């Protein structure tokens, strides 16, 4: 652990430092603004140090972590998303003071730390550590609304299921460890021929790991918790869950399967394509006639993860850059969508059902158009980042010549159009809606600023993506 190692680790260290600082600040004096500001400052500092760490990569810091350009990119993404979530939370909780929101920022910082560790994990132990830090922080975040029944129920559900899937994961790791004797990703399959999962025990072990990861990503057989959690949790927290935790987990998935060389294994590919197909279909179909906006966004996130798996299957440089680009687009769009939901809802009673959104355009045109842009991006319509994201995904799919998967992707995204349009129709329908239904104007600057930045990001990436592309190109080349 010489000085350069420390420098490389600086971003993670800084996130931890912000967590502690926030804890101390709360202990000194409970001011909502102070803790929020502090978290933002800390995260921005961490974001800054990324550029310092950039020239040093790639480095293997301790056998547990590895900081390479890919890791840095994803940490950057996570930090950006967390900053956005903090802004959203600030705007969200400002309306009601009695809720003591300070701890929220603490938990967000910790969760960001956990996901950062996950992204740089090179060893099962660090994987386990990162995952658990993230999960425990999420338990707190999800059930933050102590007063309402729903959030308690959701918190409990998430806790029990997360713990169960974590135990699956650990059991899987144990079995793999039992077989190979080393917990390091790279060391797993140097001896057996590339990707051949021959013995039965390894097969079971790998399945269990896949179950654990699958749960966290909300893929189909393990997606049950997603809709309930998104609906129960406060809107900004749901945004956090859908973006940061899933993004970090996906980065880990790529790293784990790339390093361990199990990508080519035929049965694994089959499993993943089954998962992908199932999540694409189930995600879209479940959302078809849904009335609650948050549940629709939950199901659409399942579907979008299904799309990501397709790109992951394709693999290779194109696959990884497609995943990276899609994650950027997906983050921006999801945060934006949940941002709009946050603006319209107050802690305690989030504006869920669709009828609440009817005729929004005729009274709040700006907000409605932001929401429309986000929805169109989810539906992958041109001029939005989602379109290029999906375009890149299909390109990756075609390059890996996974014809069946690509066709299903196209068909299910066509089905997906339907429910995005249902929301848009509701937004623009002219039925008279009592004026008082929504808070008169966007109450806090933080919300309006974040939404503005996110919309700009979505449209900019949609129209002129080459700077982002160039960044990703270098990242993929670097991470090897």
């Amino acid at each position, binding site marked *: 652990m010489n000085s350069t190692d420390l420098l490389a680790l600086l971003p993670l260290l800084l996130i931890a430092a912000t967590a502690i600082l926030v804890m101390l600040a709360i202990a000194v004096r409970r001011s909502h603004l102070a803790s929020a500001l502090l978290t933002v400052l800390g995260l921005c500092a961490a974001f800054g140090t990324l550029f310092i760490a950039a020239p040093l990569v790639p480095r293997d810091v301790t056998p547990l972590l590895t900081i390479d350009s890919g890791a840095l990119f994803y940490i950057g993404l996570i930090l950006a998303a967390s900053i956005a979530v903090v802004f959203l939370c600030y705007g969200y909780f400002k309306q009601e003071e009695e809720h003591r929101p300070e701890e929220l920022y603490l938990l967000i910082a910790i969760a960001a730390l956990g996901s950062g560790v996950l992204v740089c994990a090179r060893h099962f132990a660090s994987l386990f550590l990162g995952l658990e830090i993230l999960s425990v922080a999420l338990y707190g975040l999800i059930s933050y609304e102590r007063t309402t029944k729903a959030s308690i129920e959701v918190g409990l559900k998430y806790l029990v299921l997360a713990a169960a899937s974590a135990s699956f994961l650990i059991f899987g790791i144990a079995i793999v460890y039992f077989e190979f004797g080393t917990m390091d990703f790279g060391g797993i399959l140097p001896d057996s021929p590339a990707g051949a999962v021959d013995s039965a025990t390894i097969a079971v072990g790998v399945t269990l790991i896949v179950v654990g990861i699958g749960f966290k990503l909300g893929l189909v057989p393990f997606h049950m918790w997603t809709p309930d959690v998104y609906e129960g949790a406060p809107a900004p927290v749901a945004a956090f869950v859908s973006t940061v935790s899933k993004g970090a987990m996906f980065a880990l998935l790529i790293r784990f399967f790339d390093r361990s060389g199990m990508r080519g294994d035929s049965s694994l590919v089959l499993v993943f394509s089954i998962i992908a197909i199932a999540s694409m279909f189930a995600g879209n179909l479940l959302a078809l006639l849904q009335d609650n906006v948050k549940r629709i966004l939950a199901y659409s996130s399942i579907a979008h993860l299904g799309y990501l798996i397709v790109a992951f299957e394709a693999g290779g440089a194109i696959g990884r850059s497609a995943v990276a680009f899609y994650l950027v687009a997906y983050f921006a769009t999801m945060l934006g969508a949940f941002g709009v939901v946050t603006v319209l809802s107050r802690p305690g009673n989030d504006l869920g059902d669709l009828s609440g959104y009817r005729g929004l355009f005729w009274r709040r045109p700006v907000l409605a158009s932001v929401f429309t842009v986000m929805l169109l991006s989810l539906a992958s319509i041109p001029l939005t980042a989602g*379109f290029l994201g999906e375009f890149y995904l299909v390109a990756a799919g075609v390059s890996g010549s996974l014809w069946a998967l*690509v066709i299903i992707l*196209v*068909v299910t*995204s066509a089905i997906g159009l339907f429910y995005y349009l249902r929301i848009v*129709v509701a937004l623009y329908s002219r039925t008279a809606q009592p004026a008082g239904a929504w808070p008169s104007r966007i109450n806090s600057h933080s919300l309006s600023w974040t939404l503005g930045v996110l919309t700009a990001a979505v449209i900019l990436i949609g129209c002129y993506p080459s700077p982002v592309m160039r960044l990703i190109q270098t990242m993929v080349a670097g991470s090897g």
Partner: protein
Amino acid sequence: MILICLIAVLLAGGVLAAISARWNAAMARWIALASTVIDFALVLFIWINHAGQIALLNSTAWLEQVNWTWIPQLGIHFHLAIDGLSLLLLALTFFVGAFSILVSWTEITESIGFFHLNVLWILAGIAGVFLAVDLFLFYFAWELMLVPMYFLIALWGRERRARAAVKFFLFTQAGGLLMLVAILALYFFHYRSTGVFTFEYVDLLNTPLTASTALWIMLGFFAAFAVKLPLFPFHTWLPDACSEASTPVCVILASLLAKTAAYGMIRFLIPLFPNAAREFAPVAMALGVVGILYGAVLAFGQTDLKRLVAYTSISHLGFIVLAVFSWNELALQGAVMTMICHGLSVGALFILIGALDARIHTRDLDRMGGLWSTAPRLSGAALFFALASMGLPGLGDFVGEFLILLGTYRDHPVFAIVAAIGVLASTFYALRLIQRAFQGPNVHRVAMPDLVYREGFVITLMAGALLWLGLNPQPVLRTFSPALHALETTVQIHRQ
């Protein structure tokens, strides 16, 4: 450079109209009209100063082009280019577009700014499709056309408009996505054979493909164009969309959007996959012919005027499919003529129906009759355009249809004969329309004012254009011939 400002004028006009609508509605309308008229003038300007170049037949270069690198990593270029074919279709687009705005003044009353924004953005999308030479840009513009059209149908239509709008959107989007997969497949096969990532139309032309893959990729393209053209099995969205949408939207929908699909076929489908297209030709032509007859029979049975005219345009567009897949110079010239004249005649018919709807608030044939006595000019104009759509010689449509049938007869006589029967069938519904709506006793004592000056102006201009095209189509044919030779040479090269 002029191409960029073609699209820029429209986009800016749209935004300007939306903003200015806050102060007074009339300004928004004038801005929208002005931008379409400016664009029409630009197109004429291009046509005139390139007349010399068009005259010499063998010039296959693009008349005007703009090429910027957009996303270098994926080899995507912002490449717009215009040749004879796209020049003509652009002229039609702005001509009919200006009129649809002009007609919309009385009918559209709420949120006029947003309406004109959408209309101008669709026209920009359509212009983009006609100009795009980079396949990615083509797809980009193709999808771009959807969203404003969806809003136009969903917000300014009649009762069941939401359902129709969603149906329209899903249909075209599903087709579009299949085309996306096809484009990418072509892109990768090109990469695999030449190691170069590019969406450039000219480079993709000579990608060596095995027969089966070529067929599959072509089917991807064909799916998107068949849905948009409303070819026979995929046509059910047009009658719904047309009967629910307001008149100007209907005009754009029926006369312009269908042309983008036909243009796509001529520009991309056949040159990119000549051999696969030849194998697929009988199937496609059979679909076209069935479409002609099916559209005619259904049009005969309809009571709602707009649905009736929608089915007629499905029947007419069947001809274009015939022409494209028989792929000889006669048929293609006929296809271009039909595209232009059909755009005019269907557009005019919809405008008239809109005027009628505005006056007696119904489109149901059973509740009309004997309108000739109360509104002779309107009924006379309706008769004129019904005759045009029936393919009366001396008007534009006949020239197009005759050339198509002549060309198709050369290698598929059976299809040509059945299509000729289709022309006969067109007489049934056209005359039934005139008979039920305008002639006969004035049962409902419908007293209504005759054509307003503004509508009269639009109608006479369109009628004049049709008559001029009917009697003297030579300028149009001459403009398209160099582009046609270019297309034919590319197909000949790859057709070994």
